[in-house]
């Protein structure tokens, strides 16, 4: 393998695929433990064993686990994620709709949160231990340490109940126009943004501070270079790698945060879907949604790894 870039990416992609397989097995095992209960749950505790058995046969639950897994895997690779037990609709159809909503939430948040988070982190690092740094750090600490639902409810209390500017429940659907949609999603976006900005700011700040302690930064000072030049030409090119890691890792955090926020604001996204499915013991939906989440997680981590290696100047220019 001559191309250095390929030799970095390919092994990691292979690893990612391996992990996804492992994840799908784990999820199936986890969901399996539910299987026994489903039929009893649907039919009630007093049901006859034969009725339960018939139900299991109908749902395909009587076949051994590994057969079901292979069948499921085969279907997934063709795009068929099964049928929901609760409402008999195609799982992929449900996921598709909800995924769009969740992505909208994530994208809108990221658009705002990423640049703000990085900027605040860089400023805090440059003016380390000054009033600005302390103010930023304290505020973000409050947001990070609080559970998402707290931030969500506080914002709801302020903006929806007290001020009445924004709707408390974010019932979004595709028929909405651009601005109506934005208004309806404003609160969940704000909540998610606050948490993400906080995480990103802290991680960026830490990376930049450790970067600023490098010997070549001291050397630049000793060469009498202007501070602006030192930051832009010396610090920044080496900062991309850690910053990219920070951004992508935070996108991964967002995936988990989204779940709670969607429940708080009753936002029709993937997170709300999996919570409902779990409470209803809707196996295929759980399996499908969990796979989507896990895949996104794995892909994002993979991306973080690859991008930060590519951004490392030592690797780009080989001996």
């Amino acid at each position: 393998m001559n191309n250095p870039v390929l030799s970095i990416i390919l092994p990691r992609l292979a690893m990612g695929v391996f992990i996804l397989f492992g994840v799908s097995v784990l999820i199936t095992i986890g969901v399996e433990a539910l299987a026994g209960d489903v039929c009893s749950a649907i039919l009630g505790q007093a049901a006859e064993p034969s009725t339960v058995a018939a139900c299991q046969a109908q749902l395909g639950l009587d076949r051994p686990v590994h057969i079901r897994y292979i069948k499921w895997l085969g279907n997934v690779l063709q795009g068929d994620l099964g049928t929901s037990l609760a409402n008999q609709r195609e799982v992929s159809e449900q996921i598709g709709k909800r995924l769009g909503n969740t992505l909208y939430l994530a994208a809108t948040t990221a658009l705002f949160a990423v640049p703000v988070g990085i900027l605040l982190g860089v400023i805090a690092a440059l003016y380390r231990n000054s009033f600005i740094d302390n103010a930023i750090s304290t505020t973000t600490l409050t947001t990070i340490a609080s559970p998402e639902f707290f931030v969500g409810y506080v914002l709801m209390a302020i903006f929806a109940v007290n001020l009445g500017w924004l709707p408390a429940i974010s019932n979004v659907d595709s028929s909405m126009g651009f601005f109506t949609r934005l208004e309806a999603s404003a609160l969940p976006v704000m909540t998610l943004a606050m948490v993400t900005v906080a995480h990103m700011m802290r991680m960026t700040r830490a990376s930049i501070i450790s970067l600023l302690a490098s010997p070549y930064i001291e050397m630049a000072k000793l060469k009498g270079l202007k501070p602006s030049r030192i930051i832009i030409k010396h610090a920044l090119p080496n900062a991309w790698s850690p910053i990219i890691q920070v951004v992508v890792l935070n996108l991964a955090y967002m995936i988990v945060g989204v779940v709670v926020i969607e429940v708080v604001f009753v936002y029709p996204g993937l997170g709300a879907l999996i919570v409902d499915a779990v409470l209803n013991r809707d196996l295929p939906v759980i399996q499908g949604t969990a796979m989507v989440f896990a895949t996104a997680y794995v892909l994002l981590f993979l991306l973080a790894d690859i991008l930060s290696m590519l951004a490392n100047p030592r690797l780009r220019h080989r001996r």
Partner: protein
Amino acid sequence: MSEILLDVKDLLIEADIDGEWKPIVNHLSMTLHRGEILGLIGESGAGKSTFGLTALGYTKPGCRIVSGSINLDGVELVGQSDAELREIRGNKVAYVAQSAAASFNPAHTLAEQFAESPVQHGKMKMAEARKRSIELFRQLDLPDPEHIGERYPHQVSGGQLQRAMTAMALGSDPDIIIFDEPTTALDVTTQIEVLGAIKEAVKARNVAAIYISHDLAVVAQMADRIMVLRYGNLIEEGNAREMLANPRETYTKKLLNVRTVRESRYDHDKEDIQLKIENITARYPGTSVDVLKDINVDIIKGKTVAVVGESGSGKSTLARVITGLLPPGQGSVKFHGRELTAELRDRPKKDLQSIQMIYQMADVAMNPRHKIKDIIGRPLEFYLGVKGKAREQRVLDLLQHIELPVEYGERYPAQLSGGEKQRVCIARALAAEPELIICDEVTSALDQLVAEGILDLLLNLQKELNVSYLFITHDLATVKAIADEIVVMYQGAVVEQGTKAEILTPPYQPYTELLLSSVPEMDPDWLDDLVDRRKRGEAPTAESISS
């Protein structure tokens, strides 16, 4: 006498050590004339680096200037604004750091980093800076001067980077350059090339320089005047030649003392061979190049075999093979005629006990959370089954042996000095009552005077206990002092081996000659002579060896 360029008066600098401000430069003064090279020499903690940096008006984080004045060509630097200081740095005064590899930004080419300071200070435009970089790279003997500027720091070797940094410093045509231990991290043979190039470039441009080092022999080559520092105080100051010929202070005399060559007479063939290394060939797992090629070495009971080589010679790898950390591809290690198992984990305790090792960095060779008495005591218990009161007594005995006070038993490693730590490591090795001790660069990280103390201790212990040493080092002065037999290694193979007398008298193998000739001597003309001889082809250089 040319005009005074830098006039430092009564400077007091304090450093924040564990919450307390302590003086590290204690009311020192210096004057530097135009075109003069001043050598600042001292052991670690002397304050020489801190003192030298003040010419830039710079103190490292954690240090502060308390009082005194720094006058650079009429301008007072103490209390200057940042903007003013920036005008001077990289412009009138330039800095060459100890580690070029760390001081170059990995994200930019050498030429870019060369050009930014002079261009920003308005000295020249980009195009002219490029031309100048080629000119200076050529003057400093860098290979392919036209194109080397397009490379990135990690694509260039250590010695080349050091020269590139010197070129960068010369780029702005400064009045003063500060050299902060520029060759300390380099191999002895590379060091010569860099020193020669620096001296020539500096003299040619009549630049004043402050040369900071702990190695008096090196400073002797470069400086016109020398200041000897110790713990922030001035010990002696004067003209370089005079000081070398007639040192006034005891401390200076000690620093100048070249280690004596110890005589050793014995009949090689009659003595008892303790360890036999036969045909060892080895490589690190997963690599395709042999790092050791067919090595054969005999170690005689009670004697010292010194293995000399530079980085990449394989000398440390040899130690790893002997101890079983790296199984060889071929060959065997025989102890008293019996073959030792290749892997460490297969060896019986008795074998492990007989061969002990002492490391280069005593700081990391001891567990910081263990007390000294436990560090020394563990081998006693583990190998000899000595416990309780008997163990305590043995530990005290050993502490006495290594010339440390008995209270040290209760201390932790961090509370000891560098030399004291290494003594404890020696005690730890002795506690096992070994037959052979492998010393892996044990004095390389220590100040000269401290190192001498360690070597003396080791020699005395050898006389008393009849223990053998395999002494790995890159420093020929140490070899001359301690060795009975010498093995010279180069790139994984043995170049030459024999008794000390045989190796150190001519005729020499080319590589041995290169090594021997590269060791700086206290003669101020030594460097110039060597450079001349090399140019005339009378002395070997690194290129002539590899061809």
